[in-house]
């Protein structure tokens, strides 16, 4: 999911293998035929384009559309080289075939804010290859030289002769792949770096866009599950007699995590579930509660954990420092809560299975289904509709909701759509881990840090994930999980601090944890940027100037910081009662700085404006980048102000949006986004926008109130007052 996963597993070497030998097949036999039919075991030809006789340019995405805009950005890359008419483009998600593996990881995955940079070459090459072959085929058919041909609007043109791509697609399919596939120079680009309208908007404003939950077929039933209220608990016994009397309820079956009620439609299934009587064996998890966990982690944070970064002798240096500053940060579990609750539709026919689900890792889900059923992978077809938000939740390495749906279909022998309610989603697991950071910093007589000692305590995401992915992390190899410490162990601030130590404790809990939009950076950026702000104030220096001094040698951090400060008018002409806070953070190879402007209204912070600057290298779709910044800022404000999942006797206490609130429109500030003019290495957009928001907000609150927020969510500190 994360950049760290890539580097840890050294997967990048695969990129070269996978992106060479590119062949663009032209399926001209009949509309709709795709590489879906290829056996899973074979190395299918790359298949990103399907030009049909009717001139439809079908572009097949190796990444799924979950809001971030790949439905538009990847076609832009193809169109840049193909010279197709933008109106001819049709887009589809790929089937779970290894031809669509990520260019930097050996699986199909949408995550880690990688889609654009990782496909920048592959999708342009797919377009360029197609144009070369179409031109060759058209030149032969027209009896002209290739050199005399040009391409535009899905046509090959030579003098007054003209053939459409659709007319020559079949002939082009017979030609050998070109050896050289030159790509256009940036000064020739028509799409990249310019604006195009999203290709999925029409369907998303008239109700025709189909999400997983919208899958409907005759004969399909709906399943709703009564889940064990404590993770890793079990069903002891159940009585389905009342449930089976509910009109519309057909069957009740036991599955690993609970009891499923299957009915003609959702409402009957839900009423059936309400009527179920289940006795649970709550298991070991029933002892887990948030206050106890907090105490336990606090104690652990006092000891040095597994080394994640080290230079010099932090403890000795701290003892000699002119001044020390200490802080403890507490971060709760967080639920992703995408708008579309988890769901999955499964039809088993003989030894074949067909699945429909919104997933970020379709091939892993396919494999999980095959394993449960004892089928060959290629006998499991998986279709991916639009994802109604994901944010990491639809990338569970153990395929939790897909596995549950397959178990229900298998046990009931019915064609079912599993629907989780919002409460199932909130309580169903896969949270951003609970974390505590304990930091002690020594300052020199000039107020600048000379020693930094930092321990983190929190569950490892990779511990569970690596069981499926293979590879390391999670303490299994005595190596700190990067997804726990990213943002601290690679902090630009630490590189300029002579003595530092970062340690990690990864306790094991029954709570399943997962990557949540920007992963470890959700807490590490907060701890680092709030701490730096506290140091600046201790040193009686302006927080912006203090950062500038510390970030010497980190030009991209500095550029983002300076751009945000300039555009926000840092501490200039602020309205009376308004205060600003600032933060900068690199995540997923992009550098984002934000200035948050607030005032205190009725004793609570009100956010007026967020100014954001990003250096992501080349922005392929600038308005898409702006949209992601807006999105990440709203996400970051929700996380900072409100989000918290707590446990009592092992049960998640939150239920729905009334006790897990998310930001609403009346709380949304003006958001002003600036993209740095940069040709540095490309980075991501979907996640790097999140990390700076919470600390910049907290730093603004300090400016306004003198109160440092060391425990999230922020609203707890103001509700009691």
């Amino acid at each position, binding site marked *: 999911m994360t950049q760290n996963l890539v580097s840890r597993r050294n997967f990048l070497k695969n990129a070269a293998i996978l992106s060479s030998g590119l062949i663009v097949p032209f399926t001209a036999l009949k509309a709709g035929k795709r590489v879906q039919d290829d056996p899973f075991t074979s190395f299918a030809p790359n298949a990103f384009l399907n030009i049909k006789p009717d001139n439809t340019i079908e572009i097949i995405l190796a990444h799924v559309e979950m809001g971030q805009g790949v439905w538009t950005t990847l076609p832009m890359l193809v169109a840049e080289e193909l010279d197709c008419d933008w109106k001819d483009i049709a887009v589809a998600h790929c089937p779970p075939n290894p031809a669509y593996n990520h260019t930097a990881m050996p699986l199909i995955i949408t995550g880690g804010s990688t889609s654009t940079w990782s496909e920048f070459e592959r999708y342009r090459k797919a377009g360029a290859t197609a144009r070369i072959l179409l031109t060759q085929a058209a030149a032969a058919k027209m009896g002209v030289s290739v050199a005399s041909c040009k391409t535009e609007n899905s046509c090959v043109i030579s003098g007054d002769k003209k053939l459409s791509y659709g007319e020559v697609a079949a002939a082009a399919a017979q030609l050998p792949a070109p050896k050289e596939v030159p790509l256009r120079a940036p000064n020739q680009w028509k799409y990249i770096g310019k604006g195009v309208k999203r290709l999925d908007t029409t369907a998303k404003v*008239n109700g025709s866009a189909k999400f997983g939950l919208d899958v409907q077929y005759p004969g399909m039933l709906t399943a709703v599950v009564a889940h064990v209220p404590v993770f890793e608990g079990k069903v002891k016994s159940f009585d389905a007699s009342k449930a089976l009397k509910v009109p519309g309820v057909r069957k009740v079956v036991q599955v690993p995590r609970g009891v499923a009620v299957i009915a003609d439609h959702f409402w009957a299934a839900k009423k059936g579930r309400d009527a179920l009587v289940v006795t649970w064996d709550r298991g070991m998890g029933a002892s887990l509660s948030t206050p106890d966990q907090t105490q336990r982690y606090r104690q652990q944070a006092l000891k040095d954990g597994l080394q994640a970064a080290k230079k010099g002798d932090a403890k000795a240096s701290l003892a000699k420092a002119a001044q020390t500053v200490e802080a403890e940060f507490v971060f709760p579990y967080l639920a992703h809560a995408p708008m579309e609750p988890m769901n999955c539709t499964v039809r088993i026919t003989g030894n074949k299975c067909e699945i429909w689900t919104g997933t970020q890792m379709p091939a892993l889900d396919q494999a999980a289904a095959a394993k449960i059923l004892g089928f060959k992978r290629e006998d499991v077809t998986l279709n991916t509709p639009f994802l*109604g938000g994901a944010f990491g939740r639809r990338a569970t390495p153990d395929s939790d909701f897909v596995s549950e749906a397959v178990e229900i279909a298998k046990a009931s022998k019915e064609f079912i759509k599993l629907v989780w309610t919002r409460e199932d989603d909130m309580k169903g697991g896969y949270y951003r881990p609970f974390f505590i950071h304990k930091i002690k910093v020594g300052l020199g007589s000039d107020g600048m840090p000379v020693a930094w000692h930092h321990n983190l305590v929190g569950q490892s995401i990779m511990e569970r994930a690596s069981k499926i992915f293979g590879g390391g992390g999670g303490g299994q190899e005595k190596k700190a999980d990067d997804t726990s410490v990213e943002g601290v162990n690679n902090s630009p601030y630490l590189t300029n601090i002579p003595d530092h130590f970062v340690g990690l404790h990864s306790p094991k809990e029954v709570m399943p944890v997962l990557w949540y939009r920007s992963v470890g950076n959700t807490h590490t950026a907060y701890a680092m940027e709030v701490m730096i702000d506290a140091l600046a104030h201790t040193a009686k220096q302006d927080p912006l100037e203090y950062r500038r001094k510390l970030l010497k040698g980190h030009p991209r951090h500095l550029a983002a910081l300076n751009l945000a400060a300039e555009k926000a008018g840092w501490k200039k002409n602020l309205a009376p009662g308004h205060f600003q806070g600032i933060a900068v953070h690199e995540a997923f190879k992009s550098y984002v700085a934000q200035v948050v402007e607030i005032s205190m209204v009725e004793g609570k912070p009100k956010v007026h404006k967020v100014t954001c600057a990003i250096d992501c290298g080349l922005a392929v779709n600038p308005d898409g980048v702006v949209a992601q910044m807006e999105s990440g800022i709203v996400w970051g404000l929700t996380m900072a102000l409100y989000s918290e999942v707590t446990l009592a006797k092992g049960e998640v206490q939150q239920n729905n949006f009334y006790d897990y609130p998310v930001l609403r429109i009346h709380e949304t500030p003006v958001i002003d986004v600036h993209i740095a003019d940069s040709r540095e290495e490309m980075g991501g957009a979907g996640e790097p926008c999140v990390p700076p928001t919470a600390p910049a907000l907290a730093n603004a609150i300090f400016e306004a109130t003198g109160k440092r927020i060391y425990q999230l969510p922020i609203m707890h500190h103001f509700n009691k007052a």
Partner: protein
Amino acid sequence: MITLNVNNSAHQVSAEPDMPLLWVLRDLLNLTGTKFGCGVAQCGACTVHLNGEAVRSCITPVSRAENQQVVTIEGLSKDTTHPLQQAWMAHDVPQCGYCQSGQIMSAAVLLRQNPDPTDEDIDLAMSGNICRCGTYPRIRKAIKDAAKIQKQKSNA
């Protein structure tokens, strides 16, 4: 059997009277543009018009819609030309898109009642609709643009 009028056509459905309108629309009438987000009127994804008023169909029993007029996102316009749909496209509002049917249906009632809404009016009318992708800044802009489009249409 319960009779209701959805998007100007009469339907008879076999449903318990307490079945929420949302599930009648989605599971019985196959109108899946109206979304399930929370089931407790907290998120607005299920917003439809009942006799012209915005209601949360997830908590509206179908009995309340009996012999009444229901409009869903599929019936807002024949060809995606409602001013809000046009403005939504012009501003590229949707990201994942899941909440957008509900957003647009809430905004449609606002625009009919208040052809020239201010930011405050928009905040008030739209605060019942959650968007987890954070498209709120664009929703604000799009509603204001839709108001202009609506005026131009009515003047034309």
